[in-house]
């Protein structure tokens, strides 16, 4: 076997983060190499470098032993590297064939040689048993079919090396098993595949070798035959000592649950079930940590509690009373406040001033407005007070929220939600992308809030954060509660296995 692709000493800095730290990876001809790692481990950065979307600070890429520069996706394609993204990039109103040839249409003068394109696609589709009807419009296709169109698109461009980014994330189990058949048939025909995943079971099922990334470094590469799920889980989440911001998690005198979900199922943005029968209880003065890799239903869980997403099945109770789901105003009045992961798209209005953002949730009530009329003096005084009290660094309260640094923006959002006097606080990835100082500050605020008796749902893909702050922990995997425990002597390995889906029934 020869290496078709080598990544040598790839290093990439982002401000404050070392996303890739001297990474070495090689891909052999005709193999499936799995790239395993948590969110933020550096997988996506690495693949973006390979596909010419980012340029490395150091290191080189070799294709079949030849050093080459890849400055754009078209360079990558020219080197025979094709990428299938997690979220498909297809034009829904065009046919499968039109999407596949888009950008490389066989033309005769100004005319598309439709027949030729269709024939070639048909042949490729049969060769790899992809079963794509070239004439079908993309919007009519299921998610699995759309993915096969994406794969065809890459094959059509002559790719020998395929990079698949979380390819099974939005597939049903049946579609996923069909997908693995396709992978095998591609390998048989000499293609080499990099398969990015966080699902241990899949990685064990399909790959020849597995490279594990953590915090921008290669932790190790193992042969599938020598690997076990437990070992991979350990490599993925690490065995580091957990630094605690707080002293101890608390042994609780449980009171009544302030909010609970029973068998909650919701339909996510992609039309599939994002939560499947989740039940949980939130108690006053307790932090419930939700661990899991992104995209396993965490955002939808937060949205249900915040009243932004209706329930397909199941029920939600606040103070023991059943309440209708999907009413944001009602949830606020019940005392549910929400710090979203999407700070810029949801948590703040980036092109409006701080004093507008500070009262997003309270502008309709005194003292900020009376009978529909705003009280600018009260609004400004409140905003000034907030920026002082929470140390939000800004030129003035008249600057747009978009001018704040990530940490200060998050402080603004958190301050707003906390100052509303929450009884239930949903914090989704509250420290993602922040610098160390801001992380500590945000964590301290969350703990303070717990002392005040707020029930907190802490959603985080950072296992350290979950272990440092939570009193209880649940792990979400594929929309289900895969594991549940007190935060007392639980091993990272167990949590890692649950996050990778290895503990699912």
């Amino acid at each position, binding site marked *: 076997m020869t290496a078709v692709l080598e990544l040598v000493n790839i290093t990439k800095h982002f401000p404050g983060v070392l996303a890739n730290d001297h990474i070495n990876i090689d891909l052999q001809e005709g193999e499936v190499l799995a790239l395993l790692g948590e969110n933020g481990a550096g997988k996506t950065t690495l693949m973006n470098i390979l596909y010419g979307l980012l340029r490395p600070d150091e290191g080189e890429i070799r294709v079949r032993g030849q050093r080459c520069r890849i400055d754009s996706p078209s360079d990558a394609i020219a080197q025979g590297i094709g990428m299938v993204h997690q979220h498909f990039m297809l034009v829904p109103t065009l046919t499968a064939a039109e999407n596949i040839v888009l950008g490389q249409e066989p033309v005769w003068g100004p005319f598309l040689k439709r027949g030729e394109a269709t024939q070639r696609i048909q042949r490729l589709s049969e060769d790899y048993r992809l079963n794509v009807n070239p004439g079908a419009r993309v919007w009519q296709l299921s998610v699995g079919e759309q993915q096969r169109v994406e794969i065809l698109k890459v094959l059509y461009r002559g790719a020998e090396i395929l990079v698949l980014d979380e390819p099974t994330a939005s597939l049903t189990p049946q579609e996923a098993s069909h997908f693995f058949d396709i992978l095998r048939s591609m390998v048989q025909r000499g293609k080499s595949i990099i398969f990015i995943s966080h699902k241990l079971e899949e990685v064990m099922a399909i790959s020849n070798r597995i490279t594990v990334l953590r915090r921008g470094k290669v932790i190790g590469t193992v042969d599938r035959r020598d690997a076990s799920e437990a070992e991979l889980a350990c490599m993925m989440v690490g065995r580091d000592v957990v630094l605690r911001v707080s002293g101890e998690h608390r042994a609780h005198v449980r009171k009544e649950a302030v909010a609970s979900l029973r068998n909650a199922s919701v339909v996510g943005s992609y039309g599939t079930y994002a939560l499947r029968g989740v039940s949980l209880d939130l108690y006053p003065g307790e932090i419930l940590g939700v661990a899991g890799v992104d995209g396993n239903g965490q955002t939808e869980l937060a949205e249900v509690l915040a009243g932004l997403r209706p329930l397909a099945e199941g029920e939600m109770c606040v103070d023991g009373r059943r309440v209708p789901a999907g009413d944001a105003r009602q949830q606020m009045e019940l005392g549910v406040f929400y710090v979203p992961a999407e700070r810029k*798209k949801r948590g703040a209005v980036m092109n*409006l001033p701080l004093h507008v953002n500070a009262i997003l949730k309270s502008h309709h009530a005194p003292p900020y407005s009376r009978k529909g*009329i705003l009280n600018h003096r009260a609004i400004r005084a409140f905003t000034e007070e907030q920026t002082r009290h929470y140390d939000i660094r800004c030129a003035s309260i008249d600057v747009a929220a978009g001018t704040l640094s990530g940490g200060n923006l998050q402080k603004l959002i958190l301050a707003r939600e906390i100052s509303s006097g929450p009884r239930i606080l949903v914090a989704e990835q509250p420290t993602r992308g922040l610098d160390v100082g801001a992380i500590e500050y945000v964590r301290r605020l969350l703990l303070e809030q717990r002392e005040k008796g707020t029930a907190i749902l802490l959603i985080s893909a950072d296992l350290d954060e979950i272990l440092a702050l939570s009193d209880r922990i649940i792990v979400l995997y594929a929309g289900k509660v895969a594991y549940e425990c007190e935060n007392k002597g639980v091993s990272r390995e167990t949590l890692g296995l649950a996050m990778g889906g290895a503990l699912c029934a």
Partner: protein
Amino acid sequence: MTSSRLSSVLIPMLAILCAFAAGALLIALAGKSPVVAYEALIRSAFGNRNNWGETLVKTTPLLLAGLGTALAFRARIFNIGAEGQIQMGALGAAFVGLFLGNLPAFVGIPLILVAGFAMGGLWGGIAGLLKKQFRANEIIVTLMMNYVALAITSYLVGGPWRDPASTEPYTARFSPGTILPVVLPGTRLHAGIFVALLAVAAAWWLVHHTVYGYQSTVVGANEEAARYSGMNTGLLIVLTMFLSGGLAGLAGVVEVAGLQHRVLQNFSADYGYTAIAIAMLGRVEPLGVAVAAFLFAALVIGSNGMQDLVGVPVSIVFILEGLVLLLVLASGYFRRQRRLEREGEGC
């Protein structure tokens, strides 16, 4: 803040200057002296009391319709139906003026304003309701409703509401108590200008000092954040379209009750479409819209004079108007780009 505020005035000014420079080139190409032509333009718009009167007469409907359009644009609702809403407003006023007998002015004038606002608001509100209920695209709905409104006006003034004393398609004169009096003797300037100025003040207050204004600004800037904050975005859409249509309706009222004193078939010189340009030139701020409406009115009146006095072809006049709009809008793009670049560095 001050530097961005300064540039928000300076850059459009610069754009207008550029437009006039380009216009000068065209005028020269047409064989006329740009200096003479522009002098005629300024003189025709502001030369004497009558010129001022005409400019302000033109400002009035443009300002009201521009305000209405701006209210919708602020909430990122693309109401391009001011033209139809103007028609409906005029018909509302006409109903009061033609069929409610001889009213005293202190009853008649408020009544035509209310009727016009309500009719325009209703016309806009329908589009708002369709958007809220069925996610109907407001651009298409309001555009189509313009044609419907025009057809209704044509039908009424040519049929049931036609002046019995005439065969031409226009209504009879409104009753005296429903006519807006002239406020600048010797000119056609009527009390509608006060309606327009009051509307500017009201819109400014609404936008900057009420919960409605706050919410519509947030919805326009980031609908997801508005939803997250528990705002009733559906209600906001309908209400905004009602207010927007109502203000455009007032433009129709002042035009028929202040100027022609009856409804003519084509009484609106595409004010509703010019209003779109004015709302954008004014950066959807009520005070900005007032300035933009005044500038545009002066440009229209002045260009007419330029055509009459100097013989500059009318097409060049239209090109000049188009250039002003294009360059000011383009300057908005550059301002945004610069801001984006600055923010990009902050990330």
